[in-house]
């Protein structure tokens, strides 16, 4: 959003719309020379080239299946649109990660509906839970479905395409007045998981709540996220992916690239621009013009990532 020109140059309205596009259909990532690089999934040419040259994977987030309030009365429908878009890609990504809030109220039927739609992508999906996925009394629906082979509340790691992926859970044991939380047990596991790994191994950390402090006034950060980042500091390439804040935001700090994904359900306001982080309502007529995807290019030797937001219509 930064870098957009809002001047009256005849394209300003369109640019404003681009700034406000929201419905993420995911971000496609490619590994080139061991460095994850994100691409917009609608850019077929780029995606095809990336697929030809190496591994690609996709991130979707914050589907909130079951949400039916005015900001988007049909969150399941927009998730299906996202999956249709994924299916229309010219080259199939290797797998997908979902950074949490699959459901809105952790109901069995919501998990069923999410699964029914997401499975239409016919991709392997690696999940981490959002706080909305842990609302059932015994916190068992998420774990029974997605927790197999994971530790603790659902953390795990795996290797793909020469990259070490680590899924973290920062939505349990939240303390009054605090932010997201990883906890001592998970941090110890993480330190152990990374022990002995070559520093040239590209690392992708993914979790629901940002591991970096985005806006503590709204709880957008992780209390002990800094500890996790300490453990990956020595690695040459670290990419940190998350959801939760329903908007694109990124920064590069040393060898670490942080990137938040959009939601497939509803937008949330930019930090501090509204009384609360709750769903942002837009007029129905504008909704479809504001659906879109983000193409984010990570250029080495540049401090900022280049973002191109593309609306589906308008």
């Amino acid at each position, binding site marked *: 959003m930064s870098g957009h020109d809002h001047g009256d140059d005849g394209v300003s309205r369109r640019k404003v719309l681009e700034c406000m596009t929201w419905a993420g259909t995911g971000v496609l990532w490619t590994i080139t020379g061991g460095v994850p690089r994100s691409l917009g999934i609608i850019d077929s040419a780029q995606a095809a080239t990336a697929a030809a040259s190496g591994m690609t994977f996709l991130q979707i987030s914050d589907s909130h299946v079951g949400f039916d309030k005015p*900001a988007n009365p049909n969150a399941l429908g927009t998730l299906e649109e996202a999956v249709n878009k994924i299916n229309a890609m010219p080259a199939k990504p290797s797998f997908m990660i979902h950074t949490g809030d699959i459901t809105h109220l952790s109901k069995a039927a919501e998990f069923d509906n999410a699964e029914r739609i997401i499975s239409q992508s016919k991709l392997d999906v690696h999940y981490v839970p959002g706080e909305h996925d842990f609302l059932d*009394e015994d916190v068992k629906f998420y774990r029974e479905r997605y927790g197999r082979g994971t530790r603790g509340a659902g953390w795990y790691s795996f290797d793909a395409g020469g990259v070490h992926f680590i899924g973290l859970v920062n939505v349990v044991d*939240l303390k009054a007045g605090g932010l997201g939380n990883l906890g001592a047990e998970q941090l110890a596991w993480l330190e152990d998981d990374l022990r002995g790994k070559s520093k040239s191994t590209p690392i992708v950390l993914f979790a629901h709540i940002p591991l970096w402090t985005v806006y503590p006034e709204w709880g957008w950060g992780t209390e002990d996220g800094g500890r996790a980042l300490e453990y990956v500091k020595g690695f040459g390439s670290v990419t940190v992916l998350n959801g939760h804040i329903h908007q694109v935001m990124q920064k590069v700090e040393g060898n670490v690239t942080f990137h938040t994904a959009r939601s497939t359900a509803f937008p949330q306001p930019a930090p501090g621009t509204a009384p609360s982080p709750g769903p942002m309502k837009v007029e129905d007529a504008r909704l479809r013009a504001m659906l879109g995807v983000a193409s984010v290019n990570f250029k080495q030797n540049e401090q900022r990532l280049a973002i191109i937001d593309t609306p589906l219509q308008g």
Partner: protein
Amino acid sequence: MKILNRRDFGVAVAAAILLPATTARADDMDVHIDNFVFQPAELTVKVGTTVTWTNRDDIPHTVVSAGKFRSKTLDTDDKFSFTFTNAGDYKYFCSLHPHMTGMIKVE
């Protein structure tokens, strides 16, 4: 309808006789959740008061006071009530959005 009304009336009378004056309905208090904030954030009540929280956000919240009380997840317009039978300061928070905090002072 008439029969129902009469039965409700009977229950109300019985309750009024059984309960001490401090728990009369007039003393019961409400806290609303609006825009991820408990309002009022701090409330002073007498022993025996029932406080009812109502979530008016489009996002679910909870009301949790460690070791004291814990609501289920409150969806939009859901309510949770707790009757305070002991004096003291009850700090509480939303376990989903822990930056949301509140306090009930019972005297």
